[in-house]
């Protein structure tokens, strides 16, 4: 019994001791964290208030003669992240004077990958531009983590040299690298345009494709002819991305090459060209786009239909004509787009306002014949005027479509019940 009690007491003592240790560790953690934050705040205040007046060298010599290096570096990195106007150079200089730059530069050659990666990130955060050549080497490091950090650092620098170095990494061929380079290119603004035009002539198709895509965001009508030339590139990806970018630039002069691209043997290019023509929105292209509704590839039909819809009234006429097209795909796609563009509701509204509209009835009838009766059914149910509903139903009643007949019956039933309800109220 005594032994059992002893062991129970021992267990209690052990648990209490562990708990006490845990509490002690927590208290110490909070204490040191508070001290650290306070010291960092002090450094930050000193740097912000003194650097402009005294300059980086004197600030460090007179006000921060023996700082805690780890904390000072952290403060400088945070200031580098903020990147306030006119401060970046001073922060970079302070970083150099503190000996951190030298240390991190040295660590870029470390055998430990986490050290190489961290050093690259720190240099990038500070924006030390003389490290570009060293960071460029890291883009081909064995470790993914290090390569990513180098990319990050070069992106933060944003100079032409850094951009050129980053473009080399495009050979990795992943979307994330493209994204990082695109961000840097975009931030570089006008300076990057010429670089991208040069890149469009690069022998590597991946680089050309990247340039074609990013130009859609940063280029203007002046660069559009270069993209138009790229529509004849041997690589599908380059052609498709160029077509997409021409659409984003929306320069009317690009219409002709884009219309030619609608004949491209590859569906990716045709679909992007159709989309681009929709963005440009010239009414003259509507008839050519309607022909794309017959394309054997779903995406081309889909994009051509969306482009025609985007054109508004100019695209609607050819779409209505396509309802009588001999090609089933063309008919169905045109019907879907017209339905999405609320043609049924608009025709009903017109009939309500201006009496009988023979063309309108013809379109509705054709939609019903094709089997495109979704909106029609809804309209029949929601229609407030019985007379018009009756006329519409009489136009549609001879069409042999079970679903349509069910909808008509439902609409009639609903009309009768409304009538009965009205009578009851009366």
């Amino acid at each position, binding site marked *: 019994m005594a032994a059992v009690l002893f062991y129970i007491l021992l267990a209690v003592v052990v648990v209490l001791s562990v*708990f006490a240790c*845990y509490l002690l560790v*927590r208290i110490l953690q909070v204490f040191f964290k508070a001290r650290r934050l306070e010291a960092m705040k002090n450094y930050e205040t000193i740097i912000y208030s003194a650097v402009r007046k005294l300059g980086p060298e004197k600030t460090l010599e007179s006000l921060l003669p023996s700082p805690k290096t780890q904390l000072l570096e952290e403060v400088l990195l945070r200031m580098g992240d903020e990147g306030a106007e006119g401060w970046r150079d001073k922060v970079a200089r302070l970083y150099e004077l503190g000996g951190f730059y030298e240390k991190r530069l040295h660590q870029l050659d470390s055998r430990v990958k*986490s050290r190489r*990666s*961290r050093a690259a*990130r720190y240099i990038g955060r500070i924006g030390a531009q003389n490290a570009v050549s060293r960071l460029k080497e890291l883009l081909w490091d064995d470790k*993914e*983590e290090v390569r*990513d*950090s180098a990319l*990050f650092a070069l992106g933060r620098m944003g100079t032409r040299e850094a951009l050129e170095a980053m473009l080399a990494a495009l050979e*990795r*061929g*992943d*979307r*994330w690298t*493209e*994204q990082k380079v*695109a*961000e840097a290119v975009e931030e570089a603004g006008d300076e990057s345009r010429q670089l991208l035009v040069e890149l469009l002539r690069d022998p590597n198709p991946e680089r050309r494709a990247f340039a074609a*895509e990013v130009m*859609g*965001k940063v280029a203007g009508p002046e660069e559009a002819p270069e993209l138009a030339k790229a529509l004849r590139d041997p690589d599908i990806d380059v052609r498709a991305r160029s077509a997409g970018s021409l659409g984003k630039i929306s320069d009317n002069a690009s219409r002709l090459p884009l219309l030619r691209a609608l004949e491209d043997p590859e569906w990716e290019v045709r679909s992007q060209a159709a989309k681009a023509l929709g963005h440009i929105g010239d009414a003259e292209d509507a008839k050519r786009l309607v022909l794309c509704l017959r394309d054997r590839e*779903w995406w081309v039909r*889909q994009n051509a239909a969306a482009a025609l819809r985007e054109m508004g009234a100019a695209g609607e006429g050819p779409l209505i004509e396509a309802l009588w097209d001999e090609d089933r795909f063309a008919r*169905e*796609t045109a*019907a*879907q787009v017209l*339905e*999405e563009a*609320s043609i049924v509701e608009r025709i009903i509204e017109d009939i309500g306002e201006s009496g009988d509209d023979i063309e309108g009835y013809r379109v509705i009838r054709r939609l019903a014949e094709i*089997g*495109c*009766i*979704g*909106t029609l*059914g*809804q309209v029949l149910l929601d229609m407030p005027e019985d007379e018009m509903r009756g006329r519409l139903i009489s136009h549609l009643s001879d069409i042999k479509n079970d679903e349509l007949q069910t909808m008509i019956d439902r609409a009639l039933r609903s009309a009768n019940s409304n009538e009965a309800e009205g009578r009851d109220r009366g």
Partner: protein
Amino acid sequence: MSFYSILTYLAIIYYLALYSIQMFHLLLGYRAALHWKKLGYQAETQRLYRSELVPPISVINDLDFMGSDPVEWVDKLFSERFPEFELLVMYSCESDPRVEELIKAYFLRRVDRVYRRSIKSPAPLEVFQSDDRRLSLIRTEKLPRGAILNLVLNLSKYPLLAVVGNGVQMEKDVLIRMVRPFMEGRVRVPVVMGMELPLEMEDEDLLPPRRITKYSLMESLRVQLGYQVGAPYLGGPVTSYSALALFRKKDLLEAGGFDPNMPYMKAEMDVLLRLHRYLREQKTPYHFVYLPQPVARRPFPERWSDHVRELKARRDSISAVLWAQKDMLFRARYGRLGLIQLPAFWIFVKLLPLLGFCAYAVVIVLFAFGRIGWPLFAGFLLSSMAYPALVGVGTVIAARRELGILKGQGGLLYGYAFMTQLWFRQFSALAPLFVTRIGKERRLES
């Protein structure tokens, strides 16, 4: 050494192996979390929302999964920062007031959708669509979820498919965070999943109020951080279910889509294993991703019976899926998956309730009848209860440090983590063996 001692040693080895594997996975998961943290994953990913290079996503949800206010759910999703996505909402009931509500709120119009039939699927009965085509409401027949997901595969426009589970609320910026692994392209990423947390967690992500939910959360953290996050580094996870999963549509189609006869959880688990099979047969280097970050919140069990029911559904799904793909076992063609992951999954997951029950029964009986001594019995208890409790504590440490949740509850939290492994897990593992009938009856009632 007596026969009885050998039996006890076997039981001890079984538990030691099981929890050592989990501890190893936990370390791998922790390493992954650290890796992403070091790369500034969150901060850099935030920048993607302005990008045009981000692949667009089709998000799929079921009207019944959206809770009582689907309009609010849709509003919340549409406030996500993401360059381009569409939402497809599926439902089967013809006259549902929630449908009317959605149609009115988003001015949806009935359209006859022309779509690409990439895989065999049932046809939609009705399609309602918003003018900007971002929201579609699709009525289908009452079909198993697998068939509905196949229809969605046909109807969706975009190359990535996000499948949302029952009652799920997405975390902020989740789409942008989940899409990044697809862009990294070191190896092919067919699916991205992420950590799920209870909806009911209190402010500042503290423990949920109900006791069973607390235990359930601890257990879920152990499974997620102690297996799913780390498993992709070892060629796994064999199969998995996540409240929010993002698939590459092309891979899904090539793997044959979802099984049209399976319910939701089973269909998702099944397709993951078939994705493994397909990609390994094609000799394509690939990597499943389970993000060590909270991506979704879902209702966690509030009662013991709910917990057991959920657990049983999971176990049934695992059994069905493993059985359906049993020919992958011990086949060198499937690499580490066939030779290590799958056999280990059978022994330590599928057969755990049975082997665990036998181990406990045998060791207790042997001890009661004096066939084994105190040291062996204590060794068994340490390996089956105290060791997993350490794993549980490890997951809490990882969750606090890397997920940034459950901060500020100190010792209480570790107490729960410890207790969960001490008794809750043992009972949970054995419960489905005894409550099969009760569960079925209750399901029928509900």
